């Protein structure tokens, strides 16, 4: 007998894995080869683009944009390849600012693909002799170009993250599913202790086993992600540390389970330990990392599910992924519970 939620689970997971891996990323500027240019010089910049489709057949525009209203157009932009552009800027003698250096953004635009940007792309330096009024006149000469962002089905492009963005659909739902299983097992333990429903203990064991596996997978996917974005598999970030501690706690549960032979005694002791672990886990995972300096999204003042990180296209995959992984993990735990029960009856 197949229950309806199992069908939902399969459909959601198939959808999540196809959509999450196939939908492309938007175009974006990966990097440029210059860090600084001086006022008054000719600045040749080689621009590397992600997912570009540039050719010389269509005119390409590039701009340096400063302070929302000042645009400096490139005098010549040519496509070296689909993903590489060569742009030449004639930087005027004065900059539209009284500061010695400004950090303009770089914009690249074509009529068919729309505009992409690299914020604070490089620094432009002028001497200590600044003329803001002259600079303003020189920079806004050509007026504000008309730019648009092309609308198509794609995940947002984020600097540094790039393709690792997709990790969100797998890593985060795994932790959510683990929390669900540990939550259910804590509830079952509570019922065991209060109502003396001894038969629930196999369920607790199954939930914890599957939850621990999900937690391990979560920490491994997190490490792979961290390797690509933070630079190291393990950087002793507070979130990494506390989640590893939580996994150690739950791993110890199984040793306790194996260490008590008397059935009644075992059920009581493991349930009490399980509840104790759960109550220690909540502050470790959700309180302490939020307060301390952490690189992890959602902690230490970093954004997580705000508009900046999760746009509407990603929500279309992320929410189904959370539900799908929760259902799948519950399903696996349920099957494992039945296996344990059967092997006990034999």
């Amino acid at each position, binding site marked *: 007998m197949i229950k309806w939620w199992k069908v939902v689970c399969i459909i959601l997971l198939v959808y999540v894995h196809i959509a999450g891996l196939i939908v492309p990323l938007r175009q974006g500027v990966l990097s440029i080869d210059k860090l600084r240019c001086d006022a008054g010089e000719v600045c040749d910049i080689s621009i590397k683009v992600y997912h570009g489709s540039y050719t010389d057949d269509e005119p390409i525009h590039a701009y340096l944009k400063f302070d929302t209203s000042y645009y400096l157009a490139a005098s010549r932009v040519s496509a070296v390849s689909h993903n590489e552009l060569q742009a030449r800027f004639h930087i005027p003698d004065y900059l539209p600012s009284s500061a010695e250096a400004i950090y303009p953004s770089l914009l690249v635009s074509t009529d068919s693909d729309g505009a992409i940007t690299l914020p604070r792309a490089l620094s432009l330096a002028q001497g200590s002799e600044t003329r803001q009024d002259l600079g303003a006149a020189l920079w806004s000469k050509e007026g504000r170009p008309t730019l648009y962002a092309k609308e198509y089905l794609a995940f947002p492009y984020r600097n540094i993250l790039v393709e690792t963005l997709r990790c969100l659909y797998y890593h985060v739902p795994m932790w959510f599913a683990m929390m669900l299983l540990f939550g259910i097992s804590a509830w079952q333990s509570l019922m065991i*202790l209060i109502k003396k429903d001894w038969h629930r203990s196999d369920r607790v064991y199954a939930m914890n086993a599957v939850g621990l596996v999900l937690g391990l997978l979560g920490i491994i996917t997190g490490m792979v992600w961290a390797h690509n974005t933070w630079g190291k598999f393990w950087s002793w970030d507070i979130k990494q*540390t*506390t989640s590893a*501690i939580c996994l*150690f*706690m739950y*791993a*110890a*549960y199984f*040793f*306790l389970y194996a*260490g*008590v*032979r008397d059935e009644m*005694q075992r059920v*009581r*002791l493991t*349930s*009490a*330990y399980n*509840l*104790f*672990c759960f*109550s*220690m886990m909540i*502050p*470790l995972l959700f*309180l*302490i990392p939020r*307060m*301390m300096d952490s690189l992890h999204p959602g902690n230490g003042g970093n954004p997580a599910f705000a508009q900046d990180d999760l746009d509407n296209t990603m929500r279309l995959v992320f929410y189904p992924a959370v539900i799908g992984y929760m259902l799948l993990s519950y399903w696996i735990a349920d099957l494992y519970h039945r296996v344990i029960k059967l092997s006990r009856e034999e």
Partner: protein
Amino acid sequence: MNWTRQWTLIKYDFLLDFRHRFSIGSVLLYAVFSVFLCLIAYQDPELEAWNLLYWVLLSFSAVIWSINVYAKETSEHRLYYFQLLRPQELWLAKWVSGTIFLLLIALLLCLSLMALSYDPIIDWRRQLAAMGLSSLTLAAILSFTSAIGSLSDSPAVVSSIISLPLILPVLLLGQYLTGVAMDLRDPAAYNQYMMYLAAITVIASGGAMVLINFVWKN
């Protein structure tokens, strides 16, 4: 709760410690031995290593102490306890005596490390506050895990394996706090970390207080 009874029980626990002074003494001796052993191999540890040695040795001594918390009595004695006392009362007595004993171990470790290498501690007030609060937390967690362990088939193995992950957060915060006292870490977050440690103490002691009812039965 009957406070006179509780007080009697705490006093009785100290008396019991005194009667089993060899078992308590063995933990103290273990602590000094391990300091000696580490410093034979590593005679002039840097600040970072000093702090590390202190916490590693403290956690292992504390775990070794915890194995014997509930094992001082004979099994007949224990049956007598089951009938006579509420489990919380017993646990509370163990918590109080454990805090004092762990503070003793912490001081002993600190002094012997200082005697055999050098004195890195600049702010003794902060060091003592950190040691006091972490002994309180360690005793709360360990007296609970030890109750679980003592009822299992192999108390030593089980109580050490379930207590180590649970005391990891205490070490995580504690090494920072004593690090501040020896000018190794940024002192700005000291009060905040003390607060976290206090929060862990509250959660652990609350959890133990409730759950010990279900554990300490036969």
